[in-house]
């Protein structure tokens, strides 16, 4: 049996990406985008150079991920590896803020602050400066490879690579003392791993912002998918006001229609909104995955509306709810305060307060106790039972401290350790260096011939005698 030509679905399963040539535009939202861009880039490049005074043996960089000593510094905050849960809180806070911003203003993150948007905008600006606006770029792409095209292409890619290199270069500054590292990098004395990461970030910046652009939002980013499920009818989204725009027709047709008393939309189908769109979508088709809601189409449409003397904001930040209300002749309502936004704001407040409390009440010392497993207990020559414990002390202050360790719960218990000084009442005194941890083998012995259960709960109490700060850890004393 043979298949007829009409029985075969000749639609290809794969469609090559259509290149987007965003056109230059000027207006309120474009200005806002530039402001956000310069702030974002400014923070990114300046932050590593901000100094912060700490203890002399600690780094003076305000924001630093110190891999070698496994510490994270952010201004007055210093985190140890065992405190990474603060980052969990930070991530929860970040997603809640994203949800709230989405409930209020749609994808503002995507349109203004996302690094992919910021760097794509920057790369587009460079491209426009070298190759010209949309029309010239379209022409240049179609033109044969002559000297001018080659020169422009080389200039563009070189400029992109320089920006990408600077981006990657700044990224590594967050991991070592920035001023020192800058000098080391340019004098080729920096560690190999620094160059490796600069290379990786250069490559990702160059390919993501220069070549992949909107493809990242369309195919790689999970947020548009989640966002679609989180939005509601009251969220302000970049919206084409269908009720005003349709039926769309040319300026002449509209004038004629209006003269005949027929309805005519304000949209003159000039396609400017599509031309300026950085992701190449047609906003008039409604909310869609590809729309990052940057508002550039609002600026483009406003410019056109001004020229044709129609009211501005045919495309505007608007809600689905208002679209429906206008259809039935009702007035616009904006409900920024509603159950959803109150819930998100409340969750943000709770998470923020919990984190703040955790940060303020962050203990400057920590003690963990591990029972020695082999042997679980020892029958001593004196007739008692002895248990071994590995006690790890952390001193999170920049000065050395002496902690006292006390054990309770076992009658007549005696505590010994070769690395600690015995002091009064059978307690031990342990010296810990500044900003360091110290592991002490500690032995707890019972008096000779004491009647013991198989397992007796005991409690270790570590105290800083100067401040009275203490940590309590429970464990067990095992006997045959």
């Amino acid at each position: 049996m043979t298949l007829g030509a009409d029985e075969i679905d000749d639609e290809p399963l794969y469609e090559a990406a259509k290149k987007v040539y965003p056109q230059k535009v000027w207006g309120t939202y474009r200005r806002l985008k530039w402001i956000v861009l310069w702030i974002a880039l400014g923070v990114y490049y300046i932050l590593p150079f901000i100094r912060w005074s700490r203890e002399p043996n600690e780094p003076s960089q305000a924001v630093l991920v110190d891999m070698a000593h496994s510490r994270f510094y952010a201004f007055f905050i210093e985190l140890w590896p065992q405190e990474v849960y603060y980052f969990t809180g930070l991530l929860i806070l970040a997603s809640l803020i994203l949800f709230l911003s989405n409930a209020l203003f749609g994808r503002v993150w995507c349109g203004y602050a996302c690094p992919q948007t910021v760097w794509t905008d920057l790369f587009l600006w460079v491209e426009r400066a070298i190759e010209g606006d949309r029309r010239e770029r379209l022409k240049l792409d179609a033109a044969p490879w002559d000297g001018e095209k080659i020169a422009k292409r080389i200039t563009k890619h070189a400029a992109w690579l320089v920006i990408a290199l600077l981006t990657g270069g700044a990224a590594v500054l967050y991991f070592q003392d920035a001023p020192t590292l800058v000098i080391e990098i340019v004098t080729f004395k920096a560690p190999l791993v620094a160059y490796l990461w600069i290379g990786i970030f250069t490559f990702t910046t160059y390919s993501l912002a220069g070549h992949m652009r909107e493809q990242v939002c369309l195919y790689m980013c999970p947020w548009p998918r989640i966002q679609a499920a989180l939005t509601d009818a009251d969220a302000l989204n970049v919206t084409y006001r269908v009720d005003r725009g349709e039926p769309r027709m040319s300026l002449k047709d509209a004038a004629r229609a209006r003269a005949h008393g027929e309805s005519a939309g304000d949209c003159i189908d000039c396609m400017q909104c599509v031309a300026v769109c950085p992701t190449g979508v047609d906003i008039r088709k409604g909310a869609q995955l590809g729309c990052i809601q940057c508002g550039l189409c609002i600026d483009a449409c406003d410019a056109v509306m001004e020229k044709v003397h129609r009211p501005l904001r045919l495309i505007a930040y608007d809600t689905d709810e208002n679209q429906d209300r206008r259809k039935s002749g009702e007035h616009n309502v904006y409900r920024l305060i509603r159950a959803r936004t109150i819930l998100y704001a409340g969750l943000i407040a709770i998470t923020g307060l919990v984190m703040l409390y955790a940060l303020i009440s962050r203990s400057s010392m920590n003690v963990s106790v591990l029972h020695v497993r082999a042997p679980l207990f020892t029958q001593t020559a004196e007739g008692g039972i002895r248990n071994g414990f590995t006690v790890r002390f952390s001193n999170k202050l920049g000065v050395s401290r002496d902690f006292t360790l006390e054990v309770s719960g076992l009658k007549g218990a005696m505590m010994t350790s070769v690395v600690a000084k015995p002091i009064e009442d059978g307690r031990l005194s342990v010296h810990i260096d500044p900003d360091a941890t110290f592991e002490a083998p500690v032995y707890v012995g019972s008096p000779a011939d004491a009647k013991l259960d198989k397992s007796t709960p005991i409690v270790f109490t570590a105290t800083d005698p100067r401040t009275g700060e203490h940590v309590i850890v429970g464990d067990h004393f095992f006997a045959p």
Partner: protein
Amino acid sequence: MTADPGQVDHISGQTTTGHEWDGIRELNTPLPRWWLWLFYVTIAFAVFYWILYPAWPFVAGYSGGVLGYTNRTGLAADVAAAQAARAQGAAGLEKATVDEIEKDPKLLEVALAQGKAAFGDNCAPCHGSGGQGQKGYPNLTAGRWLWGGTLDQIQATITHGIRYASDTDTHSSAMPAFGHDGILKADQISQVANYVRILGKFEPESGVDLGAGKKIFADNCAVCHGEDGKGNLEMGAPNLTTKVWLYGNDLRDLVYTITNARNSVMPAWGGRLDPVTVKSLALYVHSLGGGQ
């Protein structure tokens, strides 16, 4: 089979390879370009690899590669790096005595870490991972020492071993095999074994003449183990009054020990391990809770 490349298949609209079998034509579906490029990259990678690393077997030997790398040289470099890293900490341990190290918290920290590693490598098979010992191999955590539990004594024991023939300074003593060598008779051994159980505060067998046992002990055992059975570190004679027993404390074990003697051996580690490691081991063993 006819070859007519470039022909277009009218059903799919795709070009064919020109190969045809019984009227079935093969569509030309070239590999994706990205795949081909990756393939070329792997070929290029392989060529560089051949040049840089050992690759081709010859009749005798192999192509060494210009980097001169082998797993063996890589391991040697890693070991050298590890030793260099350790040397920093070990430098202080070299000159100091064990007592001096114990008083210096920084040196002690290094020594205990090194000692723990060396203990796992060399001592744990007999003495257990935590020094808890097993039957015939002393428990190092209990505070009951055959040859002394001070730092110096432990260091001496590790260095020279026990009854280790090829070390002239080794601890040596031998308990006679009282039964085996015919010094005591079976019932005498039973009597003295029961008396030893009393010294350790265990219940003796009923109906045994303990007075005879005491006399046999005084005549034969007290020379080394002392009148009161508290032992003698000079001779490595165990204290018989504690609850910690190397070969067990029930009657069977005691009778066997008295009949055949034990006289177990520990190698001298002075010749096998460097002095810093021996010092570290002494400090670590001393720190296990039983040190004196």
